[in-house]
């Protein structure tokens, strides 16, 4: 009974972790005033790069590094386009999301001569923290997880506190809140936006790596399956404040994990698949109801 409950906590963490990384990327972008909806495509690219990297280097951490670097490069299009060239980040993101789907499918065929999914014999997945197995409570939750799972929480708290308490964080927030004032104080708005968006790309790379080498050890076409959009919704829900992200993302993780449980007892998969989206939207609406009176038609 007890193990079952902790097992559920572990499942929730596992489902939430990729979304956490992507949502952190979205939140820091939001802090500098870049509406980043490219998370889905970046995460998908990261998942592909992680598997390809692990396959070629023979090391899962090589895969993570490949995902981190190449997804950061992938996000340069959005970063430079939105911050330096004043292009519409929404349209760029729609384009890069399609590009990620096409390019990963294309490369799957060209590099590995397969389609659908890629999971060669001996593909190295991220190691689990089995050494924790004997620790009470923590063991059942974390022993089956990769180090990227606790790292997500550490990173979110660190970034959240840095944004809140440090001079650099203040400047970064200033860029998003009042770009003209920030510029007048000598802060380069475009530089902050560019580098923060690229850092977001690196985080999405980690999200993809955790998804493809941590949650499972395979790349499947379109395997992100909307997680990037749930991350975007999570960013909206917490109004870009990273410290609140764990609450939002664990909620979505719970919806997904609960869905798996319900499938186990015979609920149709189609309906449990829809649950995270429906719940996300309902939660968004519920939290927005108190703003309803203030919301004017002109600000949407």
């Amino acid at each position, binding site marked *: 009974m007890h193990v079952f409950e902790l097992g559920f906590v572990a499942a929730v963490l596992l489902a939430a972790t990729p979304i956490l990384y992507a949502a952190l990327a979205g939140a820091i972008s939001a802090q500098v005033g870049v509406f980043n909806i490219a998370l889905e495509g970046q995460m998908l690219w990261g998942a592909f790069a992680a598997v390809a990297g692990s396959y070629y280097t023979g090391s899962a951490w090589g895969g993570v590094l490949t995902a981190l670097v190449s997804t950061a490069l992938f996000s340069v299009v959005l970063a430079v386009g939105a911050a330096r060239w*004043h292009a519409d980040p929404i349209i760029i993101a729609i384009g890069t999301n399609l*590009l990620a789907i096409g390019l990963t499918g294309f490369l799957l065929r*060209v590099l590995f001569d397969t389609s659908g999914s890629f999971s060669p014999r001996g593909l190295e997945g991220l190691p689990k923290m089995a050494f924790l197995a004997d620790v009470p409570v923590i063991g059942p939750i974390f022993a089956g997880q990769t180090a990227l799972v606790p790292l997500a929480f550490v990173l979110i708290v660190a970034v959240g506190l840095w944004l809140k308490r440090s001079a650099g964080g203040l400047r970064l927030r200033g860029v998003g809140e009042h770009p003209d004032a920030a510029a007048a104080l000598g802060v380069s708005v475009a530089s902050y936006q560019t580098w923060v968006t690229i850092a977001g790309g690196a985080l999405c790379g980690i999200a993809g790596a955790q998804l493809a080498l941590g949650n499972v050890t395979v790349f499947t076409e379109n395997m992100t399956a*909307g997680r990037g959009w749930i991350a975007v919704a999570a960013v909206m829900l917490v109004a870009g404040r990273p410290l609140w992200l764990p609450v939002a993302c664990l909620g979505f993780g719970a919806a997904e994990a609960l869905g798996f449980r319900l499938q186990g007892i015979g609920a149709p998969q*189609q*309906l449990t698949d829809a649950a995270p989206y429906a719940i996300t939207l309902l939660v968004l609406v519920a939290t927005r109801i108190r*703003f309803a009176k203030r919301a004017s038609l002109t600000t949407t």
Partner: protein
Amino acid sequence: MTAPPETTSAAPAKASSRGRRLATAALRHPAVVPIGAVVLALLIGAVIILAAGLDPITAYTAVIQNSLDPGQLDYTFSVWAFICGMALAAAIPLRMGEFNLGGNGQLVLGGLTATVIASSLPLPSIVLIPLAVIGAAIVAGAFGAISAPLATRFGIPIIISTLLLSPVAVAVVSYLVRFPLGEAGSAVAQTTRLPEGARMWALGDLSYSNAGLIIIVLLMVVFWVVDSRTAVGFELRVVGANRRFGAYGGVRVGRLALGAMAAAGAAAGVVGAVIVMSSPFRLIDGALISPGYTFAGLAAALLAGGRPALIPVTAILFTILQVGGAGMERSADVPRQLSDVLQGVVIVVLALRTVLDQRRTERSSA
């Protein structure tokens, strides 16, 4: 980055400035950006094909040959119409600056509604077929319209709510097709074939192109007329250009969004209805979504800048890519996913056109 100040004598400067003015005027032509985006995307695509060790010329030739092959034109025309219909679903909200990314959900709801009406009502074709199409438009339109109050009352952007609603509709339809409405004993998740009387009227002896495609073309004409000749169309464009100005000028933005999203959903619903009422005359799980009409339509709408008169033209491009992609795979061994890559690249290049404006302002301010 800034150009050095001109210090040449008066006469050549005058001539060169006239030349430059002509060049600038030519660059400002509305066709330059879309055509430039496509050319650049094709070049980038060629580089990708070369990098993969394949031959871009063979690939592109195969795309054209396969999609415009006379025997294939019947099919190509049907794909063009579906992409046009989904382009409408994206373009109508785009006109007022909103993004409808929930086309898939609206599409499958339309297909479901048409299937239910067409297979359950014992009516003559002349009543039943229009009824199924209208029913699909109403249900999908209502579903699309949900996003408008979510934006105006709760501040959830339309782009987010459409994206979150769409997978819910897709999952529900997938469930219904699989279980309550599914054909008994079939290995594939699909409904039973529609009765003869509920199948879309064929055009002559063509097997893909039917009266449904005429309906979609008519919808495009309606959008063109509304956009260019009516007050609502003007309001849409004003709000798209400057939302605050529109609201200040007395446009009820909330209502306009409701109408635009309902119309967009209805257009997608009609496409769904036409697809299920065409061969093989049934709703098959995933068959409405997997061809990618929604995002090809969105790409066509973006490339046309939402302008109704341009959509049929930009839709041709994405139709050729879509239909020709399979031929490219067969005869040039280039994976068909390249079509998706090119779609994405066109949109990215299109978005990055602002770099031109920037250069221009930098130069003029120098």
